[in-house]
């Protein structure tokens, strides 16, 4: 229990009348990579967005059940969403750098939290870029627009941007689906390095990717959590028939 950052209990989610998630129970472990797999529309991205309350942005979205972050339900009325999002970072499917300089992209989050000191910001920017394996490529052009980077670099910049907040968890929503194989490989290596310091929850369409990088895998189907276990168990001896059918490519 002490090693879990998130404990999800009986989570149901509705978009209007449509129920997208059916009583999900799941624990997210510290310093582990947790992969969420399943066919399109199975609710894995929706589930991911519950963890930092990005579903709040959708008007018709209603939630019951508990998402416990260190024993605090993030859906409690008086829970501070802003501080949750500084602790639980997110990387999106499509790289979405802000139209600013590389430096300003990284400094954006800390600045929003009121950090103004130049030397401190410089340190944060350098450290974040180093930890996202981007420093060597951009150290001479921190004042260039982030839009001038390649897609893979932009995605690593978005990871650096999340790291700059020194979060505890990083959520990744299909972070490599818009990238070429080499950029994908770099991101996967990066994820492997990052798990020493962060819990990572990653939604992926690629089962090979889940098998390569994750420690735990959750298989979602039609809004239900079908199976959740250690990744090598899921991919070698799954308990559920549906899981086996999916990972062997019989549907999805």
């Amino acid at each position, binding site marked *: 229990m002490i090693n879990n950052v998130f404990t999800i209990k009986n989570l149901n989610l509705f978009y209007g009348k449509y129920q997208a998630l059916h009583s999900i129970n799941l624990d997210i472990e510290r310093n582990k990579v947790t992969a969420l797999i399943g066919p399109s529309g199975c609710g894995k991205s929706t589930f991911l967005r519950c963890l*930092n309350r*990005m579903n709040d*942005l959708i008007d018709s979205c209603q939630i019951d059940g508990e998402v416990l972050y260190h024993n605090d339900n993030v859906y409690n009325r008086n829970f501070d969403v*802003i*501080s*949750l*999002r*500084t602790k639980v*970072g*997110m990387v*999106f499917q*499509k790289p*979405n*750098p*802000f*139209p*600013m*300089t590389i430096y*300003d992209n990284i400094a*954006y*989050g800390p*600045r*929003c*939290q009121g950090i103004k000191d130049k030397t401190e910001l410089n340190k944060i920017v350098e450290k974040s870029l180093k930890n996202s394996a981007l420093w060597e490529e951009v150290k001479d052009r921190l004042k260039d*627009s982030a839009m001038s980077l390649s897609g893979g670099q932009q995605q690593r910049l*978005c990871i650096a*941007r*999340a790291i700059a*907040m020194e979060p505890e968890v990083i959520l990744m929503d299909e972070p490599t689906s818009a990238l070429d194989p080499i950029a994908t490989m770099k991101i996967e290596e990066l994820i492997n390095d990052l798990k020493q310091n962060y819990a990572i929850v990653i939604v992926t369409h690629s089962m090979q990717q889940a098998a390569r990088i994750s420690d735990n895998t959750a298989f979602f189907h039609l809004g239900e959590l079908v199976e959740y276990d250690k990744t090598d168990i899921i991919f070698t001896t799954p308990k559920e028939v549906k899981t086996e059918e999916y990972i062997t490519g019989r549907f999805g």
Partner: protein
Amino acid sequence: MDFIKKQFGKIKDLFHFNSKKEVVDFIIKLFFLISTIVSASFIVIIIVFITKEGIKPFVTDNGGIGSVNLVRFLTGTTWLEGTAFKSNLYSVGFIIINTLYISLLSLLIAMPIGVLTALFIAKIAPKRLSEILRTVIELLAAIPSIVYGLFGSGIILVFVYNLAKVFGVQSPGGNSVLATVLVLALMILPTITALSEVAIRSVEKDIEHGSLALGATKTQTNFKVVLTSAKSGIFSASILGIGRALGEATAVSLVAGNARSGPTLSFFQTTSTLTSTMLQGLKETTGIDYDIRFSVGIVLMVVILLTNAGLNFVKKRIGNVHVK
């Protein structure tokens, strides 16, 4: 039908077309080209006509009065006109300054208000309210300038007159720089708001979500990310706004007071712009006094062209500069 088919065949042979479809394609392209030539040639005709009339005061002796000195015309500080005493002492130097001064001031008022309104409509207001506001802004943009002028001379002149009294200044009936700036600001406000709103609305949701996911508040997101992303569109809106301000004649004529000398920097004194100068008494005059208005027209076109070029240059520069 046969006739048309024959003609098609002729064209086909003449231009070595391979099929009927290519002929149709060619004719349609020709049609587009002709439309473009017609519309473009009108611009050329207008420029040629205005230039031809406008250089007359400088190159002829204007029926014995003597030609106008170009340098004096462009730099002088009085507009000496009148059919009673014929003169060649026309100058627009001060009017150019007045025009730029007034337009920039009105932009300075209209831009922040317009952008904040746009942000409210696009991002903050509930859906229903923002639809209503959008319609209102579009209606405001469609109001003819003479109506703004009437509003200006009925309401704003009185307001400025009374305001001047508070400061202990006697404003000539309220006709003044301030009244002109206020009327112009009102006029360009809907343009700037409507275009900025479109620019803000078209900022990708991804970027906004990225900011929120980093723990930024809605307000931080709106000001630091949404406005930054929309700045190029907002700048275009301002360019159109200042274009309208520079070119507005009717409303300005009703509240500017048409000063004959200047430049006027004081808010409560009468002023004049290039457009109001052209318009004033245009119908009742002849000879050099008529022709010189075309010269002013050339100056106006050059001023607008240079302003746009300058602003576009700045726009390109800020495209890469980044807001903290």
